[in-house]
C-alpha cells in the first residue's frame, strides 16, 4: 500500500501566550506544554458544520444529547477523514429537513471537502452518534449511525466515496434510542461484531414531563423520568447479516441509561470487554467470558459507582493506561458536582477510584462532561485527557446563579504516573471559549505526528482543533491491518485489527495501546495508534498481540513516521511525518 501524504499547508497563527511556563516533566521527556497550543481551523479548512438540535419549547430530551462525530479513513489515502452526525427536529419537520449528516474528505493539504452529496449517506432520522469498522473485511471502513427515533443505519463502504445503506439486510436497525456504538470482534472469529448502547424509552410520551413552568423556565427532563433501555450486541454472521445475540450473551437483561461505550480488554485475557457509561444509574462492565457470553461485573470491579457508592451521570468514556503500568484504566465523564471519574486498573480485575488523587476530580467539579479522549497531545509519553463539557439544561443560568449552559473544555496534562493538571488556560483559544460540547475525538489530521481534536457541539458548529507544537516531542503512528489466521488457534484477526494490543518500548519506557472502535461520547478516534516518544528517536520494540492471538514483534523502528504493520508481515509501509 502506498500512502500519499502531501504537505499540510495551513498557516497557523503564532500564539505568544503559550510560552507561559509551567513546571514540567523531568528527564528525557520534554515539557511540551510550554509550546503546545490548539487552534480552531474548521472554517479555513472547509470543515463547516452546524449541528441542528431542533431545540423547541417541547423540550424533547434528544435535543440536548447530540450529536457525535468520528475520524476514519474512508478512502484509505492515509489521511483521516471526518464524519459528523446531525440531529434534526422532534417538533418541526421543516427544521428536521435542514439536518444533514456530513462526510468530509481530507484532501491532505490542510483542507476538507464536503463529499456528502455523492456518498449515499442520508439523514433519515434524528441522529445521535456513529462508529466505524470494516465489518466485511473488504478493506474499506464501513459506518454505523445511531439515531434517536428511527432505526440505526449501517452504511457499507463501496469505495470511491460511495456508501450503501444495508441496514435491512444486515439486520442492525435497532429501533431503540441509541447513543454510542462500537465495532469489536467479541468472539474473535475475525469478523467485527457491533455493540450499541441505548438510552431511555418513553421520552416521547412526556416531552417535558408535564412541566408547567412558563416556557422560558421549562426544563428538559431527568432521564430517571423514563424507562431504561438494554444495550444490544449484534453478532456478525459473516454473510452480510448480523444477529441480535444480546439475550444469549447476557447483555439484554441489564437495562440502564446508556450513553457512552468503550470496548477494550481491561483484564488482558485476549477477550474484548465492554464498558457502558450510564446516566444516573450504575455503569455496566460486561466481562467477556470468551464463550459468547458476558458477565456484568461493574460493581465487583469497582466501576459501577463512584467511591461514595453513588451512581453518577455517566456520559462519555474511554480506556487508556494513564500510569504506565500496562493496564488499561478507565475515565468516565459525569455531571457537574459529581466530578468526572478516573478508575485506575489495579490489575486483579478490580479498579480503584482515583478521581480525587489524579487531579481530574477537582478540575471537573463544575463541568457537565460529555466527550473524553485519552491523547498524548504533547508527545511526552503519557496519556493526557481532552474533555468537552456543556450543560444539559439550556436555561440553567436562569435557575442557578453562576451556572452556564456553554462550558469550557478541558485539557488535562498527565504529569506522570497518572496525575493530571489542568493546562487548558495555556492551550490556545479553543480552550478559552465556552461551548455546549458533546464529542471529542483525537486524530492526526495533518500527519505531522501530533494529535488534533475534533469537537462537536450541541446546536453549534463543530470544531477541528489543530495541534501546534505537540510534535516538539517525537512520536510514532501505527496503522495495523489484520488478516492472517492464527496457526495455533485457527482464528483470524479482523482487518481493522480492532482489539489488537500493542506494547511499545522506547528508551526503557513501555507504553500500551489498544486498537478500538467507538469511544468518547457518540464518537470514535483515529483508528491508528499514536505513541508519544518524548526525546526518543528509536522505538526499540513494538510487540503486537493481534486479535487472533498471534504475537508479532518489530524492532528498531525510527520515530516520527506513520508505519503500517500487516499481521504476519511486519512493516509494509512507512511515511515520514509531515513537518
Amino acid at each position, binding site marked *: 500500500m502506498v500512502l500519499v501524504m502531501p504537505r499540510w499547508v495551513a498557516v497557523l497563527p503564532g500564539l505568544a501566550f503559550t510560552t507561559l511556563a509551567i513546571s514540567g516533566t523531568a528527564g528525557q521527556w520534554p515539557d511540551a506544554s510550554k509550546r503546545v497550543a490548539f487552534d480552531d481551523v474548521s472554517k479555513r479548512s472547509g470543515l463547516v458544520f452546524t449541528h441542528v438540535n431542533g431545540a423547541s419549547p417541547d423540550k424533547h430530551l434528544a435535543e440536548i444529547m447530540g450529536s457525535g462525530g468520528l475520524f476514519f479513513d474512508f478512502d484509505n489515502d492515509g489521511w483521516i477523514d471526518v464524519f459528523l452526525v446531525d440531529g434534526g427536529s422532534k417538533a418541526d419537520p421543516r427544521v428536521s429537513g435542514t439536518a444533514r449528516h456530513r462526510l468530509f474528505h481530507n484532501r491532505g493539504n490542510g483542507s476538507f471537502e464536503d463529499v456528502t452529496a455523492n456518498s449515499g449517506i442520508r439523514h433519515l432520522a434524528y441522529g445521535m452518534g456513529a462508529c466505524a469498522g470494516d465489518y466485511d473485511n473488504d478493506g474499506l471502513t464501513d459506518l454505523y449511525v445511531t439515531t434517536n427515533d428511527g432505526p440505526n443505519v449501517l452504511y457499507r463502504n463501496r469505495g470511491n466515496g460511495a456508501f450503501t445503506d444495508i441496514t435491512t439486510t444486515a439486520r442492525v436497525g435497532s429501533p431503540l434510542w441509541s447513543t454510542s456504538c462500537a465495532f469489536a470482534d467479541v468472539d474473535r472469529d475475525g469478523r467485527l461484531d457491533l455493540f450499541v448502547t441505548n438510552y431511555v424509552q418513553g421520552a416521547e410520551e412526556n416531552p417535558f414531563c408535564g412541566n408547567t413552568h412558563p416556557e422560558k423556565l421549562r426544563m428538559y427532563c431527568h432521564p430517571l423520568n423514563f424507562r431504561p433501555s438494554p444495550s444490544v450486541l449484534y453478532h456478525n454472521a459473516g454473510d452480510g447479516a448480523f444477529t441480535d445475540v444480546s439475550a444469549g450473551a447476557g447483555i439484554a437483561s441489564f437495562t440502564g441509561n446508556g450513553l457512552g461505550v468503550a470496548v477494550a480488554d481491561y483484564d488482558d485475557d485476549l477477550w474484548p470487554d465492554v464498558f457502558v457509561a450510564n446516566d444516573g444509574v450504575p455503569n455496566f462492565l460486561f466481562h467477556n467470558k470468551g464463550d459468547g457470553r458476558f458477565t456484568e461485573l461493574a460493581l465487583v470491579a469497582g466501576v459501577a459507582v463512584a467511591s461514595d457508592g453513588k451512581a453518577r451521570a455517566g456520559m462519555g468514556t474511554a480506556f487508556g493506561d494513564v500510569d504506565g503500568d500496562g493496564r488499561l484504566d478507565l475515565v468516565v465523564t459525569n455531571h457537574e458536582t459529581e466530578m468526572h471519574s478516573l478508575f485506575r486498573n489495579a490489575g486483579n480485575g478490580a479498579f480503584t477510584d482515583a478521581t480525587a488523587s489524579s487531579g481530574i476530580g477537582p478540575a471537573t*467539579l463544575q463541568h457537565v462532561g460529555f466527550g473524553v479522549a485519552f491523547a498524548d497531545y504533547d508527545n511526552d509519553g503519557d496519556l493526557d485527557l481532552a474533555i468537552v463539557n456543556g450543560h444539559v439544561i439550556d436555561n440553567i443560568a436562569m435557575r442557578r446563579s453562576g451556572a452556564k449552559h456553554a462550558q469550557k473544555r478541558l485539557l488535562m496534562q498527565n504529569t506522570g504516573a497518572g496525575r493530571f493538571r489542568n493546562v487548558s488556560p495555556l492551550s490556545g483559544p479553543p480552550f478559552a471559549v465556552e461551548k455546549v460540547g458533546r464529542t471529542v475525538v483525537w486524530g492526526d489530521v495533518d500527519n505531522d505526528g501530533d494529535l488534533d481534536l475534533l469537537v462537536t457541539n450541541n446546536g453549534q458548529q463543530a470544531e477541528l482543533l489543530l495541534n501546534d507544537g505537540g510534535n516538539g516531542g517525537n512520536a510514532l503512528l501505527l496503522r495495523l491491518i489484520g488478516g492472517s489466521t492464527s496457526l495455533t488457534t485457527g482464528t483470524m484477526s479482523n482487518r481493522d485489527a480492532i482489539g489488537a494490543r500493542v506494547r511499545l518500548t522506547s528508551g526503557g519506557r513501555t507504553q500500551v495501546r489498544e486498537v478500538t472502535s467507538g469511544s468518547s461520547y457518540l464518537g470514535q478516534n483515529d483508528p491508528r495508534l499514536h505513541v508519544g516518544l518524548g526525546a526518543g528517536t528509536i522505538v526499540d520494540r513494538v510487540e503486537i498481540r493481534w486479535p487472533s492471538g498471534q504475537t508479532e514483534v518489530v524492532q528498531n523502528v525510527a520515530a516520527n513516521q506513520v508505519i503500517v504493520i500487516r499481521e504476519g508481515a511486519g512493516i509494509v509501509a512507512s511515511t515520514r511525518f509531515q513537518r
Partner: protein
Amino acid sequence: MSRVCALVFLLLLPAPAAAQKGAFIEALLEFHSALSGTYGDEGPRVEAALDRMDVALEAWNAESRLAEASLRAASDSSALARFFLNEGRPADALEAVEEAIRLKPERAGLHMLRGVLLGADRRDADALASFQRAWALDPDDVVNAYLLADALSTRPSEPPERQLASLLAAIGSEPPSPMSGRDATRPDSTGQAVRPPAGPPQRPSVGTSTRRASFIQVGLIDDSASEAPQFSRAAYADGVAALANGRYEDAIGLFRAAMVRDPLVVDHVARSGPAARGVAALRQGQTTDAVADLEAAVAAAPSSSEARRLLGVAHATAGNVDASLKWLAEAIRVAPADERAHIAMGRVLMEAGRIEEAERVLLDTLRLLPASGRTRWALADLYELTGRDADAIDQLEQAATLTMIAGKTALLLRLASFAHELLDEERVISAFTRQTRLMRNNPLAHRSLGLAYHRAGRDVEALVELLVSSHLGQEDAETLAVMGQIHLNAGRLTMAETMLRRAVAIAPDSAPARYALSRTLLGLDKEEEGRQQLAEFERLQERLLDERRQKYENDLRERNERLRGETTGK
C-alpha cells in the same frame, strides 16, 4: 502594652478577674445592642453601657495586677504564660513561655503554646519550628499534630501528604476514642495534670466534645455565640478594632469620641415630647399614632435627623413606602453620615421591589461609609434576592474583612453557602477554613471543612480535618464513611476497614459506607464478607433507586394532572 483577648479561657482566670472581665463584656454587649437605634430612644442606654465598661475595666485591671503579682511570686512561668494569654497579653505570654521552656525544654505543650503565640504574631516560620519541636517531643499529641499540619498547609512547597503524616501518626489507624488511657492521663498542652474521668472509656456522642486535649482559642467574645454577624456601627469601627487588639482603654476612648457625633446619642428629640410618644406607639405597633406623633416632632424639631429617620421608619412600618423614603432622605440630608438612615432606605426600597434604587442607595452608602458591614450585608441580601450570587459573595468577602463584635462564623457560613451554590468549592474551603480558625474546638466546623475538601477532591486535607473533627468528638456515619473512602482510595485498607466498620455499625443503611466497606474487604482478600457487604449495598442501592424513580413518577403524575386541569379549565 496591648492585649489580645482570651475570654474563651474565662474559667481559668482567677475568679475575681474573671468576674470583672465578664462585667466588662456584658456592658460591651449592651453597648453594642443599644447602638442598633431601632426606636431612636436608645441613646441613654448607650451612654450608660459605656460607663459600665469603663468601671468594669478598671476593676478588671486591678484584679489582674494582683493575680500577676501572685503568679510572679510563685515563679511559675508556665502558669504565668497561661495567665498572660488569658489576659490578652501575648508578648508577656511569649516571654513567660520562653522562660518556661528554658526551665523545662522537654515539655511539648510549652513549645506548642509558643507556636500558637508566634502564629498569632504572624511569625509563621518560627511558629512552625515550635510545632515541629513539640511534635518531635510528643508525636502523639493530636492537637499539636493538627497545628503542625495547619502550619505546613500555608507553605505551598509542602506536599499535603506531609501534613497528613503527622496527624495520622498522632491519631493512628482509627478515630481516637475520647477517653483512651494515654490521652486521659497525660498532661494537657502546658503541663497541667488532667484527671482521668470515672468509668470505662466511652465514645463521644454526635456533636459533643468530651476530650481533654483541645485547642488554645483566643478571643474576647466567643464568635459563635451569635448566630448572625454583629457588625460594629461604621462610626464605631475604630473602637471595635481597638477592642480586637486588646486596647480596651483606647477602645472606650474611641467609642466616646464616636458617641458625641452619633445622632442617636446627641439628638435628644426622641427622649421626650411628641417624638417619645411616637416611639412608644411604634413599639406597640400603633403606626398611625406613631406617624402622627413623629410628624409633630419633625415640625417641632427642624434640625433633628433622628425625628426624620424615625418618621421614615414609622411610615415604612405602616406600608407608606414613598413617605418613608421621603423622610429617610430628609434624615440623610440632615445627618449624611447616619448609617442607620441609609440602610433603612435601602431596605425599604428592597422590600418595595425597587431593586435598582436600593442597590444604588446601598452602594452610595458604602462610598460614604466603607466600614459599614451592615450595608454590605444588606447588599448581599439584595443580590441573593435577585440571584446575583457572585455579587453577594463579593460583598460578604469584603464584610468578612471588617472587625465584628461576634458572628463572623455566621457570615462565613453564608459565604460558603453562596459559594457552594456556585459550585465554587475552593471558596467554600476558604470560608470554612476561616470559620474553623475562629472555632478550633468545634468538631462540626472541622467536619464542614473536611467535607468541603472532600467535595473538591482534596482528600489529604479532608482527612486531616475529619480526623480532628473525630478527635474532638464528632462521630457520625457520613464522616466515618468519607474517611474510610479516602483511606480506601489511598490504599490504606486497614485504616479504611476500621472506619467503615464503625460507620456501618452506626448506620447500617448507609449505602456509601457499605459500598466502601465491601471494596475494602475485597481489597484485603476478605472475599466472602466483601461480597456479602456488596450484596447488601446492592440491596440498599436498588431501594434508593426505586425511591428515586418513584419520586420522579409521582412528580410527573402530579404535574400531568395539574396540566390536564389547567387545560380543561378545572
